[in-house]
């Protein structure tokens, strides 16, 4: 009994203005800026990934170094390196877990927000707004302090539970439990946007359609699955693509959690790229990993932009 949102007629557009040189003049400054700050680096990163760095950093910067083109040798080098694959798999698992948890909690919270009394909704939305506003760098430092082994609040509170002994437990000794704490920070920061915009989406589902479903004998779960979810689909697609992009490239949370020196077990692809490229000044290797990272995300991006065009937002 799938109730699909009715296809809406496109709004009638008034006749386009005759294009003079004006619109081109208007976008000219933006084009110049984009070419400088995005176009040039994009060309440069591809170029770097095809070159080999044979001299030191100084020579490179004063165009005295030799950086011959080596074709795809950097790529074969990176792709045959087991470290890269370990990092990539870790990143994919991390992304899946984080996106999954964020969406699950965000969607449940959005449903919850539709069922509570006004005061409870104001309270929860208010808290979520503050959570949303806190920079990821700040929240990571706060979580680090909460999970610190000796005086941390987390160990103390968990220790109060019967049968749990967490006194002096070091969450960061094992990268897996350390990354679990990172997941907590990421999800904590991601839920507000998801919950609040999904809540807005849910309240736009027409009441009469829900009522009709109820009269037809659909339970709350069935009504949610067959009425609410199809309405939320476009929003959900956009939110999940954005979440994938953010979580795949997560950086600040891991970097701050490890005080600027993430151990190998903490490296996701962003950290790996940065440590290789900036940390050790292997610009060509870093650029190669960067290109691979962008290729991975390209698939997701195409999906996102297609969705934007489909709902007519990009028209």
């Amino acid at each position: 009994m799938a109730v699909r949102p009715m296809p809406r007629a496109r709004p009638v557009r008034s006749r386009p203005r005759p294009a003079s040189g004006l619109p081109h003049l208007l976008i000219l400054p933006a084009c110049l800026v984009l070419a400088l700050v995005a176009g040039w680096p994009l060309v440069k990163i591809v170029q770097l990934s095809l070159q080999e760095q044979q001299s030191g950093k100084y020579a490179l910067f004063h165009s005295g170094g030799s950086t011959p083109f080596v074709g795809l040798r950097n790529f074969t080098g990176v792709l045959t390196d087991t470290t890269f694959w370990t990092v990539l798999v870790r990143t994919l698992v991390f992304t899946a877990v984080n996106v999954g948890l964020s969406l699950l909690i965000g969607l449940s919270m959005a449903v919850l927000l539709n069922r509570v009394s006004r005061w409870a909704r104001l309270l929860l939305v208010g808290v979520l707004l503050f959570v949303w506003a806190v920079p990821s760098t700040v929240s990571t430092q706060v979580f680090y302090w909460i999970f610190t082994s000796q005086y941390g609040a987390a160990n103390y509170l968990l220790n109060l539970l019967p049968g749990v002994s967490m006194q002096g437990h070091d969450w960061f000794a094992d990268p897996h439990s350390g990354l679990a704490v990172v997941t907590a920070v990421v999800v904590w920061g991601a839920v507000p946007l998801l919950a609040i915009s999904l809540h807005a989406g849910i309240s736009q589902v027409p009441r009469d359609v829900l009522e009709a479903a109820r009269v037809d004998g659909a339970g709350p779960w069935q009504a949610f699955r067959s009425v609410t979810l199809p309405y939320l689909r476009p929003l959900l697609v956009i939110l999940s693509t954005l979440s994938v992009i953010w979580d795949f490239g997560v950086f600040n949370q891991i970097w701050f959690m490890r005080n600027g020196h993430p151990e190998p077990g903490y490296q996701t692809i962003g950290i790996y790229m940065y440590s290789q490229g900036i940390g050790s000044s292997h610009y060509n290797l870093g650029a190669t990993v960067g290109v691979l990272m962008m290729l991975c995300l390209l698939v997701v991006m195409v999906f996102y932009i297609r969705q934007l065009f489909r709902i007519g937002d990009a028209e």
Partner: protein
Amino acid sequence: MTILPTASSATLGTPVPVLPAVAEPVASGAGRYRRRRQATRAWNALAVLLSAIFGFPIYWMLITAFKTSSDINSLTPQFWPKHPSLRGFREVLADPIFRADLRNSVLITLSAVLVSVLIGFLAALAIARFRFLGRKVFVFAVLIVQMVPLLALTIPMSLLLDRFQLKNSLIGVVIAYLMFTMPYTVWTLRTFIANVPRELDEAAMVDGCSRWQTFYKIILPLVGPGLTATAVYGWILAWNEFVLANTLLIDNDKQTAMIYLLFFQSSPVHGADWGGLMATATLTSLPVVVLFVLFQSRISAGLTAGAVKG
């Protein structure tokens, strides 16, 4: 689907294979009301619990910032500050490097936002109001740039700025920040401008307004609130940025507040000073938290506009 006459079994509390909503039309009005009220009460309790869990880290940051060192370094944490103190704040604010970094953050963020709003507004006006050759290409380019992982472009950006001797300079960071503030501004302002009905400016033109007057008297006042929201969110994005600043700025007194926050713990002066760290964290997030909470509804309108439209 027909309504099944098995409602009576639902009231007995035995597990019913039928969908629970089916029972409702038969149950008495008062009973249903009571049941719904009880359910709401349970949901409210859950909402309060979730608020407590999600709010805890912020609460913990604030009270740690106001605690004395001996209260912080105690094996049984105090969930209420017994001896409130401003020591952490005083210590951080007295640090000249923190004050310099805070000033740098303000300068960088403000410049990046001003430049991108000025240039971005013109471009947004063009794509929201005109059809022209290359418009789709431009929109596509803006969207792509907005999605490109900033992190990947750190390496070429750092080389580019180095070539022009703009590394370790605030201007260099401002240029680098345009990488993300510019596409965001163009895209969001476009949405706000597109929301102003085109008929309005057509009517104004018919009434004899020039194109400039139409823009100045019709579009600008109506887009004003959206413009503010866009600028505010641009401010938040730039203020929170860490990677580019960390890569491009080298000298201590030339860094931003975010970098200060990272190095606070590693510095020998402040090592393990949790109160000072949390005071720094509070001060660093204050300029964005306040603005965000004030402007949130308009910011998220810009962020998800179109997506919610369905």
